[in-house]
């Protein structure tokens, strides 16, 4: 190891190192960006399809996406349709806005003669963001399927929200009770009665993440209520 170098040498050495490393990293990031963005886009399509229980490979998802998704909409807080491409709406920005300014994407899918309404959700877990898609049957009440994902939940604990055994619990649950009050679905630490239409079992060791899921569902579905009421009145 080189010893006793002058300050000048050290400064030049450090500067060159920083420039070289910065060049390599930025070059790499620029070169790989299109591929990475494509992966993210395909995964989003895959996740949306998974919420109506259509399982496809990520590479395939682009080809079949519009076979199932028949309509996309952006709604405002009064449940009215506004202009724009729903797929491009970034929920991360939207959930920070005032309710009256918020754009809410909605995907309408058809599979096996059933119509599904897919709502994108986003919230906070224990360490970082969690997000997902939940699909409702045309009664705007029964959940047909759910798909969750996370940025950095604890591996093996909170990260299990993205696994099938957790997601499948949501099938058939209801977001309104029999009197028509909004109840959402809660993830219950103490475990849910299988007959409880508004509760599912939490993950052992993942309570904080599960609380995040409950809150994300409650807040995320609530904002679509005006649209649901409108649709029901038309029928």
């Amino acid at each position, binding site marked *: *190891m*080189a*010893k*006793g*170098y002058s300050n000048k*040498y*050290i400064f030049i*050495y*450090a500067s060159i*190192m*920083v420039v070289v*490393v910065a060049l*390599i*990293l930025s070059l*790499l*990031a620029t070169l*790989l960006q299109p*591929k*990475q963005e494509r*992966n993210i886009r395909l*995964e989003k399509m895959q996740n949306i399809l998974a919420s109506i229980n259509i399982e496809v490979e*990520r590479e395939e998802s682009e080809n079949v996406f519009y076979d199932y998704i028949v309509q996309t909409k952006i709604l405002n807080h009064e449940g009215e349709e506004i202009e724009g491409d729903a797929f491009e709406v970034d929920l991360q920005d939207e959930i920070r806005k005032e309710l009256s300014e918020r754009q809410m994407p909605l995907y309408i899918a058809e599979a096996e003669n059933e119509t599904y309404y897919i709502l994108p959700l986003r919230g906070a877990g224990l*360490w970082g963001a969690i997000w997902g898609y939940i699909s409702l049957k045309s009664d705007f009440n029964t959940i047909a399927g759910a798909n969750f994902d996370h*940025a*950095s939940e*604890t*591996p*093996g*604990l909170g*990260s299990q929200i993205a696994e099938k055994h957790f997601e499948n619990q949501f099938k058939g649950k209801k977001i309104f009770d029999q009197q028509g009050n909004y109840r959402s679905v809660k993830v219950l630490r103490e475990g849910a009665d299988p007959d409880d239409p508004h509760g599912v079992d939490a993950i*052992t*060791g993942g309570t904080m993440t599960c609380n995040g899921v409950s809150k994300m569902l409650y807040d995320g579905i609530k904002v679509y209520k005006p649209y649901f009421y409108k649709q029901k009145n038309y029928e």
Partner: protein
Amino acid sequence: MSENINNNKEPLFSYKNKKLLSNPIGKDNPITIQVLGICSILAVTVQLKPSLVLAISVVAVMGLANVIISLLRNTIPQRIRIIVQLTVIASLVIIVDQVLKAYMYDVSRQLSIFVGLIITNCIIMGRLEGFALYNKAWPSFLDGIGNAAGYGAILLAVAAVRELFGAGTLMNVQIIPDIFYRIGYENNGLFILPPMALITVGVIIWIHRSRDKELIDAS
């Protein structure tokens, strides 16, 4: 003539070089003997699969970082050597992460937060500081791979124990048969929690030392 040259040059896998590779897996294991890298053991060993991915990533990063630092060793000024080491490790980890995101997206989803854990893994910096700065590239490479493998072996052992007793599975495949659960067997929730990683490592250290008396610290 040719014999002479061969005599002067050390073979690639000489006894000494093999020791560099095998010692850290047993006698000089970074976790059980040097007690480095415990932090990441606590965090990721709930399940076997992420542990495996992390172990492989650490092998790659550590082998490369050792080689790079070893090649640069005669130019690195003593006073900023830690910064240079950190820069090399962090850059390698970012490169690995970016490439995975583009070409092996599923693996990168698995890795998620472990990438950061690799940067802070004390073993990597320990080997750069303790070995690569004073040795040629090839021995440094072997030393890096050996230490990463030693780390990985313990990681996998702890993860296997914790996943098996905590969840009854290995690599997400059910191992403990259903009939056990019907009789009244239950998964032990304690194994899922971080303290059990420490206890498991402790038990491994205990077994390791009781088999190899040389390792017992007289003091």
